[in-house]
């Protein structure tokens, strides 16, 4: 094994509790770097990283880019439109061409589940999954864990309910794996048409009513309701969804305790989450974004370099 995480970060499902713990612990000191006047350390100097985004993304792509730059890596962004991908080049050919230019890591976002793993098995560079289809979005899962840990100090025994379109959500899947491994009790809540069948097999509780979820949980992770789902017939309308499943202040006020409110973004205000909840005192949505940079720095740092065969020569220096 090259380092504590291996070559790639493709999903949270195969990670051990210790590996997740290591990433979260490593992220702690990286928070401070973003608070400095000069937000940069030389840890990844000379490493070349390609951000290969086949799907639209603002938050995740910029977060990765900041993380890379604050570690002094050299970065190149490739978007599907405007590149040779739009001319019909295959994913592997694109990546092999990039690799021929001597890169060290690829951060990939792709619409097909399994795309990151497919790539990781075919190139030598480290691959970080920045979201693949409806499979996983591991760094989002990790930043959600870090945000929860910041607020609750310990994770084990806490109760988190993931609300909304779990069926199509890679964020939900990464959250479920990550939270379960850290000993958190997990529930999901949403219309049955947007919950995977047999979701209980992942060890989660299912709530059909948002009121019941709010009564049970310590924190809600509210997923974005992708508006294109309406045309596909999963739900009748955004208004009706808001009336039945929307997280509103009135609903939260009936809860026995204050709930931490999380959302991976981008939000549909007035659909899955009301504005006074998103901007309310218990919302940590922007804290999640801040933590995203620290977590991604930790992942990049842990995957970078590490050639143990050269270690002997460098040992013993103080």
């Amino acid at each position, binding site marked *: 094994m090259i380092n504590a995480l291996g070559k790639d970060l493709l999903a949270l499902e195969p990670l051990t509790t210790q590996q997740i713990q290591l990433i979260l612990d490593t992220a702690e000191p990286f928070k401070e770097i973003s608070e400095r006047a000069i937000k940069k350390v030389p840890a990844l100097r000379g490493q070349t990283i390609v951000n290969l985004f086949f799907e639209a993304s603002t938050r995740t792509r910029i977060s990765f880019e900041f993380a890379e730059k604050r570690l002094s890596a050299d970065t190149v962004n490739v978007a599907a439109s405007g590149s040779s991908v739009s001319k019909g080049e295959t994913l592997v050919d694109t990546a092999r061409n990039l690799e021929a230019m001597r890169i060290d890591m690829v951060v990939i976002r792709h619409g097909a589940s399994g795309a990151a793993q497919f790539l990781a098995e075919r190139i030598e560079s480290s691959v970080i999954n920045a979201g693949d289809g409806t499979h996983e979005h591991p760094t989002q899962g990790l930043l959600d864990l870090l945000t929860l840990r910041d607020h609750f100090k310990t994770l084990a025994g806490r109760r988190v309910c993931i609300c909304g379109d779990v069926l199509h959500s890679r964020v939900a899947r990464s959250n479920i794996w990550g939270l379960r491994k850290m000993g958190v009790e997990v529930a999901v809540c949403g219309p049955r048409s947007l919950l995977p069948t047999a979701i209980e097999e992942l060890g989660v509780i299912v709530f059909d009513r948002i009121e019941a979820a709010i009564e049970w949980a310590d924190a809600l992770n509210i997923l974005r309701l992708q508006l294109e789902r309406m045309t596909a017939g999963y739900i009748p309308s955004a208004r009706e969804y808001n009336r039945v499943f929307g997280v509103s202040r009135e609903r939260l006020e009936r809860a026995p305790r204050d709930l931490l409110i999380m959302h991976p973004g981008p939000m549909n205000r007035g659909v899955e989450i009301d504005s006074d909840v998103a901007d309310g005192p218990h919302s940590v949505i922007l804290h999640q974004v801040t933590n995203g940079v620290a977590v991604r720095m930790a992942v990049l740092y842990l995957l970078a370099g590490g050639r143990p065969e050269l270690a002997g020569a*460098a040992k013993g*220096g103080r």
Partner: protein
Amino acid sequence: MARKKKEVLDARAVERTLKRMADEITELNHGTDNLIIVGIQRRGVQLATRLVGIIDEREKATVRRGSLDITLYRDDLQTVGPRPVVGPTDLPWNLDGMNVVIVDDVLYTGRTIRAALDELTDFGRAARISLAVLVDRGGRELPIHADIVGKTIDVGDDERIDVLVEELDGRDAVVVVAREDAE
């Protein structure tokens, strides 16, 4: 094979040495104005705290104490791989015009101090940066020297110097240990 262990400084000697170093720090910096004492993770941090305590008491001052983790500034990250745990850096001041004293337990190759100087530069342009170490064991690989030295100890490459501090190790001492081959 039995491992040789030799205690070079005991707790009282460490205490005495730190008091002298504290005086030398204030002398070198002409008092405590604009003085910031920065300990290097890990044992430099405890030593810096002690020095600040002594200076505060003697000079009736409140000297600022920071800490620095140089892991991300190392020159061997690519060869040895990332250290699993990076310690916290706590330096919430602009260093422009400040008198900064770096505190570390042992000065050996000088590579840690090289990294620390690089990192400090990112926090501002100090008026002066000086270096105080509890033990100078020789063996430099870079043109770096300490301004204030607690004790100079000549040891071979096959020996290691361990500085023990009460906060982490239960007692204060400086010990010379035979280095294991695997180390």
